[in-house]
């Protein structure tokens, strides 16, 4: 039928394989009879934390906090394609939180989960990780698809922004992992170009012992749950998901402050020609980042009003963009902004990215912030 249709022997049940084989998957006449139960009895999925993971801390602050433990990661390989590189990394299965609006929901580790699989894709010349693409991962073993999914955009204290999900593998062996990345959704400015579709393929000789050997560090109980964050890990692509230091932001800058663990910087750049506008326009940029680790906060709805001497200069939504110096930020082209202009930023919706432990109570209920240039 297509490139992904392969004869696929179900690893759970033999009868399932008979019903699911690519050669013929027509619904059985069974569906016509409306008979009783189908005899399944193995309720093996667990919905509680699995293994030795400590329970989530009860009283968590509403900002980044030190988690119960820190896990390292391993790299299965690194590939390049033109100006882009992809590292296939993995760690223990993780619990994490997904976000819908201002609701968070915990995803627990299940008995089937083998690893937390994370493809990291970055622009090697601009040294930026584009968060507005959507990798599709296919994991195969012996020609059979083991997993086919779009990993979640996520944020963790050691890694910053990345894509990841828990995956159930089929034991030790050689896996083929394909990662397809389409073009991005956001703006590219300052000479950056949107990536063309990318494809990376890894041959991964997976051994469970290599997961078991990944570092696991328990955090002393007096530190866990305290406001703060464990420091970013020392990997080049992790630094690429950090927003610029306030001093490195071009233009006339202002500090908006902190809300729910998100720290907001803003700048006004008189000449918008390097920012998607023209030389007689001005660019307004807002750069939210995590408190402590300075990681970018993608997938927010931000809007801004600019007021000068009581008169509205700008009032509208900001759109996300990547710029070599500003990194991932939210911005708009405006006509002008005199000194003394007041900026009010509203968070219409918080970052809709998944969170690893220590970030799930932050960046959810975010208030508006103000500053004067």
């Amino acid at each position: 039928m297509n490139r992904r249709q392969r004869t696929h022997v179900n690893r759970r049940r033999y009868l399932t394989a008979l019903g699911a084989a690519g050669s013929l998957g027509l619904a059985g006449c069974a569906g016509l009879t409306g008979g009783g139960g189908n005899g399944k009895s193995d309720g093996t999925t667990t919905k509680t934390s699995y293994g030795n993971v400590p329970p989530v801390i009860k009283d968590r602050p509403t900002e980044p906090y030190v988690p119960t433990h820190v896990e390292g990661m391993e790299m299965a390989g690194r590939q390049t394609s033109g100006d882009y590189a992809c590292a296939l990394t993995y760690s223990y299965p993780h619990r994490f939180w997904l976000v819908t609006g201002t609701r968070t929901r915990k995803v627990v580790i299940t008995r089937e989960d083998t690893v937390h699989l994370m493809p990291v894709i970055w622009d090697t010349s601009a040294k930026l990780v584009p968060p507005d693409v959507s990798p599709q991962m296919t994991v195969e073993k012996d020609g059979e698809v083991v997993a086919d999914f779009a990993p979640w955009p996520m944020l963790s204290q050691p890694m910053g922004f990345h894509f990841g999900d828990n995956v159930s593998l089929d034991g030790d062996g050689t896996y083929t992992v394909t990662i397809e990345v389409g073009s991005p959704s956001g703006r590219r400015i300052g000479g950056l170009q949107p990536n063309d579709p990318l494809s990376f393929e890894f041959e991964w000789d997976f051994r469970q012992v290599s997961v078991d050997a990944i570092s696991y560090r328990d955090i002393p109980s007096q530190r866990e749950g305290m406001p703060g964050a464990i420091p970013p890990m020392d990997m080049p692509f992790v630094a690429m998901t950090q927003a610029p230091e306030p001093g490195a932001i071009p233009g006339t800058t202002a500090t908006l402050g902190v809300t729910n663990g998100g720290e907001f910087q803003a700048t006004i750049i008189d000449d918008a020609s390097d920012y998607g506008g023209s030389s007689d326009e001005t660019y307004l940029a807002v750069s939210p980042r995590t408190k402590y680790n300075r990681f970018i906060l993608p997938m927010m709805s931000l809007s801004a009003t600019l007021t000068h001497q009581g008169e509205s200069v700008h009032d509208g939504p900001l759109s996300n963009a990547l710029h070599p110096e500003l990194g991932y930020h939210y911005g708009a082209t405006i006509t002008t902004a005199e000194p003394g202009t007041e900026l009010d930023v509203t968070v219409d919706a918080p970052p809709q990215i998944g969170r690893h432990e220590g970030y799930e109570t932050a960046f959810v209920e975010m208030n508006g912030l103000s500053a004067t240039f």
Partner: protein
Amino acid sequence: MTDTDRGIPRREFLKSAVAIGGASALAACIDWESANVPKGVDDPSTLPRRQHAWNSTLARDDHGNVVVPRHHLILLLDYGADGPPGQEVRIGFESALQSLERAYEWSNEGLVFAVGYSPAYFDRFDTTLPDGVDIPGPQALAPFEDPDLDTPDAIVHLASDHAQVVLGAEQAFRAETEELNGISVEALPDGLTITDRRTGFVGRGLPADHQDVDGIPENDPVPEDSPLYMGFMSGFEKNQASEDRVTIAEGPFAGGTTMHASHMFLDLEQWYGQDDRYHRVATMFCPHHANEGTVEGAGLNLGTDSGMDECAPADEAARTQGVVGHSQKMTSVREDDSPLILRRDFDSTDGGRPGLHFVSLQATISDFNDTREAMNGEDLADSSAVGQRTNNGILQYIDVTSRGNYLIPPRPLRAFPPARPEVPA
């Protein structure tokens, strides 16, 4: 059935039988179903000019929504020689199709089907298709998809409430049976080859019956009352274009339509294993429905439309709620308060994982592309908290693996039509 079969649960046996396929599967189905399939017409020329005129013969639910047949089979056909097929092949194919119409009633209780042709087929002719017949080649329709582009000569979409009927039709095509339902049937003519078969099901209970495949959490999450894997009904009367709307109005192909047929894998591990119902309702319908609990079960309570009047516009939801529903995005592609496309999609376990064959009919392929563009919500991802796929309708969970575009000619031209029929048939 022999005595040795009796210890096997009937349901499992039938699944195995169908999976094995071919003549023995057909025999088993006929034996077990014991269905009285109504016979077809003596004179197939009395059937409607529109091949896609299915609705008046199909069942309806309590609200009046059309219920598509439960079992589906798509066959892709190639003609082995260069140039247009000759008279012999045309007559042979038409004869095979008519024999099915004599064997089975044109209804969900019998068999409905439609035959279409790809742009690759029409390339066999020196002339081009008439103006107004819009069948471009298939293409990727989102920045994040990389589908195989199907270019068979022809496609046959068969549907029935009885598995034995679609299996029987295929067996007849393959010359593996000469009689169906007491009527003698004919095989495909020489020169025609079935290059691919795609199978599936839709209807209350069937997805739940087929949830023991890889790619679905093991706690049987697919609701028993759902007609589709994702847990909600579709095909609300007011969310479907009418057959009139999708019909080509003028020219030699008047009475025909266009078909887009794609396959996508569905990530039900994330959908059921990691997301909750609130999120499923918000992304399938709209955040309002999730907040208000508007959708009960599979949504049968909604009646004849998905209640989009109560939901905010898609851009407003994306900006202020951080999530936008699939149906919510679709409201922007309506004309005269009707969608542009008529969906006849069905779920599948092809490839050994849960999937969907999205079959839709529309007057022009552009109508389909416009609909898909709205579903992509690229403008929303650019300017709101909604991601390119995450929280952007159901894009997170679908991986399109193939796409194909077809012209469904009117019935008199359904057997290998010329690109330029000289007179309206």
